């Protein structure tokens, strides 16, 4: 087990290195941040000073070398725009994004799995038709437009829920979160639903497909032949079998939720990492973009590792590479 984790972490280092090179070199090719940072009437010497102070006068390879040297010490550069360390900036926005992503995933799982079970147990029924069509619809809704519609209906027309910002946050266990206040929850609801709908559709389809593939298997019939009740067959025998792909997808999609939250955060003006990255790309705030990508890559790697470890506990047939041999 330990061997497996260590091997995976070493692999992760390589991935991080590759990502940092690709991103750093790629961003270098994009426009000149000095143009955006300086006022239009700045003179030549002010320009030169700015370029020097940002370290942009050195060759690319030197810039990367300096970046890498600092990066291993936890310094990913200073934001051109905010003038604070980019890693600090990202970490300060992270709780808002994680809160949104987790909330969306919980909504997707709690609603998606039961609906998927229902549809999968009664294939071809009216309920199945409605749920399946609904899930394709959920898949097809472009996230940003769906967000606009949610705002239009619930904020503009009905006036029930606020459409932007995070609202009042409180602290639970020392973590600043919207869960702590009523106002925070009200602000969280629309963006969370918006982010959840796509994953909800995915959960439905995944569960439904899993149920349909598992129900005709002999062990289900054998459990029936033992006299086991139908609820127990579905909730223990079938669900535990399809949990493996579901957990994998939940893990993988948690990463994608964090990435997709860029769109939702932009629409609902949610002050998380996603909105930050879009703003930073538009303002060519390189250190923030690079730091964001490295942080997100790291989160992905961690999530994948946790999923792989969960695998082994859920499916006894899975043996982690490096453990059995």
């Amino acid at each position, binding site marked *: 087990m330990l061997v497996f984790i260590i091997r995976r972490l070493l692999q992760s280092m390589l991935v991080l290195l590759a990502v940092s090179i690709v991103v750093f070199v790629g961003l270098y090719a994009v426009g000149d941040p000095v143009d955006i940072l300086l006022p239009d009437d700045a003179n030549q010497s002010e320009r030169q000073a700015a370029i020097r102070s940002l370290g942009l006068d050195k060759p690319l390879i030197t810039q990367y070398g300096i970046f890498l040297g600092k990066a291993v010490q936890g310094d990913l550069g200073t934001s051109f725009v905010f003038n604070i360390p980019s890693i600090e900036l990202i970490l300060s926005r992270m709780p808002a994004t994680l809160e949104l992503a987790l909330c969306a995933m919980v909504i997707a799982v709690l609603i998606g799995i039961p609906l998927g079970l229902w549809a999968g147990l009664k294939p071809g029924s009216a309920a199945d038709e409605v749920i399946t*069509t609904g899930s394709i619809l959920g898949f097809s809704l*472009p996230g940003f437009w769906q967000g606009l519609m949610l*705002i239009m209906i619930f904020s503009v027309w009905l006036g029930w829920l606020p459409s932007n910002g995070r609202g009042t946050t409180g602290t639970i266990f020392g973590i600043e979160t919207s869960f702590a206040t009523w106002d925070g929850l009200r602000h969280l609801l629309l963006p969370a639903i918006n982010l959840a709908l796509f994953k909800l559709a995915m959960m439905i389809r995944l569960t439904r497909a899993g149920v349909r*593939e598992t129900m005709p298997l002999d062990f289900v019939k054998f459990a029936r032949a033992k006299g086991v009740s139908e609820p127990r067959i579905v909730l223990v025998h079938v669900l535990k079998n399809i949990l493996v792909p579901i957990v994998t997808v939940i893990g993988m999609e948690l990463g994608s939720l964090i990435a997709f939250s860029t769109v939702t955060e932009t629409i609902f003006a949610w002050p998380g990492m996603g909105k930050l990255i879009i703003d930073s790309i538009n303002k060519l705030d390189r250190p923030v973009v690079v730091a964001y990508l490295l942080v997100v890559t790291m989160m992905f790697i961690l999530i994948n590792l946790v999923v792989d470890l969960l695998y082994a506990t859920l499916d006894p047939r899975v043996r982690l590479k490096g453990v059995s041999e």
Partner: protein
Amino acid sequence: MSAVPANPTAPEPEKRWRMLWREFAENRRAVAALVVCGLLLAAALLSPLIAPQNPYDLTVIDMFDSRMPPGSVNPDGFHYWLGTDGQGRDMLSAMLYGLRLSLMVGVVSGVLAIAFGVSLGLVAAYWGGFVDALIMRVVDFMLGFPTIMVALILLAVLGQGVDKVIFALVMVQWAYFARAVRGTALIERGKEYVDAAVSLGFSRPRIVFGHILPNCLPPIIVIGTMQIAHAISTEATLSFLGLGLPITEPSLGLLIANGFAYLLSGQYWISVYPGLLLLVTIFSINVVGDRLRDVLNPRLQK
């Protein structure tokens, strides 16, 4: 032995396609979706002929007509059935042109991604060894990151433009095809008919393209359909975020983005109608793809 033994259970190709069609047509929802897809494609192709106005022709656009609600008639007697946008463009015309652009981007990027991904998948499956390992590591790497993020970064680097958007979409899609084709091809490669073809001295390309590729078609068709829908949606999202197509060539995503500002003041039509058109497009492609998956999936066949 004079010929490569054919799979005895497989009916003749023509008959097989007809059977598939009959099974497909059993689901009325899927047939309706296919019809809608056809209509949308026709509307997109014919948009210069059927659109009431050329939304790119600045001489026919009147700023005084901006943000008119659906059904309005301007002083010249021109009907704006779906209203006008912030610049006074006829929404219906702008949507038809936008649809054309969105479909074009989706289909072209899909086809290119299939060509690229399928080739790499076949190469990986057939040559194996180091080539396979290398290609599949790259595939894993690509699939490890969400589409939207990779596309965002690529466009942040490349800048705006139709060609750049298509390039970014191909880059985020090819890996799905490569993985699916490699998987199927590896299974096919292990089957007897391939050994038979090898023993008869057929050349590698002939075996790969003549024998293995046709068996990989079902997953390619299913994933291809879904990916085109996904590409259209991704393009719209990127354009909405201001990183996709330039303002001068408004796709559906950009039209929606333009309407965002007016949405809160109740001028809903600028965002809602292009969004609905986008939704109908993606939805009907997905319904068709979903049915294809059911029809072509051997695991669910009775």
